[in-house]
């Protein structure tokens, strides 16, 4: 990449965090926020995993977030979360918004050419929760012993609630962004891929600025989405907290979260400088690869993940020893952590401080890469690597710790490796 891309604003909603500052504060405490799964789910299935890391309802009930009751009926919660995180990120970037249509909640950003403002947002499953919840409420009276006696109207807006492209579309409509607009479906790498695509589009000169990140909401009253992951045996089977124990011998799977959203504002450095924006961090390189191996398992040799790291170092023209911090994928699964830990131990023998944010917040799938990119920005700014909520020794000689660590170098990597075989990463600089 010839010219670094500037990150000028961040916004987030995640378990135990209603904004990016709270995200950082929660990460620094480093406690596992798991709660027992809802008791009523056991009426429908016998779970293998006993914990999850939920958003609290007030975090996604739109009135609390300044969205209107009308929007509540028309938006999937993943879309509501993304809109709220985008408002925060734009404000953080100093990009003033002006309401141009109160009824439709449409804003403009006067300081940006709308045709050169793009939107790239990742998600794992889009708005499937809305479909499930609507269908359940609609058909419940026909189900024997149903608790609901009256049928609710099948929401006429359910199609724009479930179609994945509505996620980036709703952001583009709300803020009048008329440049490239993409929702990226890449499972756990979705928002890191979105960050790569936006970085590339700005680098090519196609855009001045982009709203970039991810959003996910996986929740309905019967626990069906949790069950899907649970039955695939990828969730932690821990009986006590902390649940996910990334990179330790006692890891048993990831801690499920029902959702989050993270949004970053990316700009060409020239554009950011011209408007006098504060630059939080810069993206020096972005890289993507695909395993072409198995839809549910990573290449056991870690070839795709290795290529991410080597491409990032080569494109940024830095050596592995220059890297001062890595926000790992670190889910806590047996095979995923084995591959990632071996790779990091081999490529980074100087043991830079690592963190594994999913052990704290839970795995928020399509939002996780964006949350981790935000945490990497804040880690570089404060020269502080957040801890993980587990004091067991890692299975490899890597720089993971249950206490905060000092970051010595201004360079960091944040990477994601997804179901399907989609890998993506960013190399960031303070």
């Amino acid at each position, binding site marked *: 990449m010839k010219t670094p891309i500037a990150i000028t604003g961040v916004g987030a909603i995640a378990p135990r965090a209603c904004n990016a500052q709270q995200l950082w504060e929660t990460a620094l405490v480093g406690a596992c926020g798991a709660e027992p799964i809802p008791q009523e789910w056991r009426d429908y299935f016998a779970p293998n995993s006993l914990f999850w890391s939920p958003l609290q309802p007030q975090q996604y009930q739109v009135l609390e977030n300044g969205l*209107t*009751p*009308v929007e509540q*009926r*028309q938006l999937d919660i993943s879309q509501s979360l993304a809109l709220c995180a985008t408002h925060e990120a734009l404000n953080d970037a100093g990009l003033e918004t002006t309401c141009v249509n*109160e*009824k439709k909640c449409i804003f403009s950003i006067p300081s940006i050419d709308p045709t050169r403002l793009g939107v790239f947002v990742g998600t794992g499953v889009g708005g499937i929760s809305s479909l499930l919840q609507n269908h359940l409420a609609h058909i419940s009276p026909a189900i024997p012993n149903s608790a609901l006696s*009256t*049928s*609710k*109207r099948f*929401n*006429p*807006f359910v199609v724009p609630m479930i179609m994945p492209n509505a996620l980036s579309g709703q952001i583009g409509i709300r803020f009048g962004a008329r440049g490239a607009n993409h929702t990226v479906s890449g499972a756990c790498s979705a928002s890191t891929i979105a960050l790569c695509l936006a970085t590339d589009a700005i680098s090519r000169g196609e855009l001045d600025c982009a709203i970039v990140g991810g959003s996910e909401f996986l929740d309905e009253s019967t626990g069906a989405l949790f069950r899907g992951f649970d039955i695939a045996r990828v969730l932690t089977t821990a009986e006590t907290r902390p649940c996910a124990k990334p990179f330790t011998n006692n890891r048993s799977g990831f801690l499920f979260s029902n959702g989050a959203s993270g949004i970053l504002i990316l700009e060409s450095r020239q554009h950011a400088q011209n408007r006098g924006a504060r630059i939080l961090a810069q993206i020096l390189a972005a890289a993507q690869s695909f395993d072409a191996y198995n839809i549910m398992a990573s290449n056991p040799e870690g070839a795709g993940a290795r290529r991410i790291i080597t491409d990032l170092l080569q494109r940024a023209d830095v050596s592995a020893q220059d890297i001062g911090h890595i926000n790992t994928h670190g889910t806590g699964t047996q095979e995923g952590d084995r591959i990632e830990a071996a790779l990091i131990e081999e490529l980074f023998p100087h043991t830079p401080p690592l963190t594994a944010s999913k052990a704290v917040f839970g795995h928020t799938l399509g939002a996780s890469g964006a949350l981790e990119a935000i945490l990497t920005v804040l880690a570089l700014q404060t020269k502080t690597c957040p801890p993980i909520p587990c004091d067991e020794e890692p299975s490899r000689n890597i720089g993971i710790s249950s206490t905060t660590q000092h970051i010595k170098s201004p360079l960091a990597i944040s990477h994601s490796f997804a179901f399907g075989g989609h890998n993506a990463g960013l190399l960031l600089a303070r």
Partner: protein
Amino acid sequence: MDKDLFLQIQNVVVEVLRCPPEQIELSSHFKDDLGADSIDIVSLLMALEDNFERTIPNEVAETFVTVGDVYNYIQKHS
């Protein structure tokens, strides 16, 4: 007129159409007087169902042209 019922309906219309309450009368035409488009009408129907905790059949909803049509239906089925 049942003033409480009218105020309840008025609040729902204001919430959905974002028009000033003083503009809303029983004779107000949703499309011509209050600027509602087809999406607004669907939103209004859902808001009325939530507010009055009832399902309004589609064939009835299709006859709602003015605020008075809504008022008469809800008053009759309360």
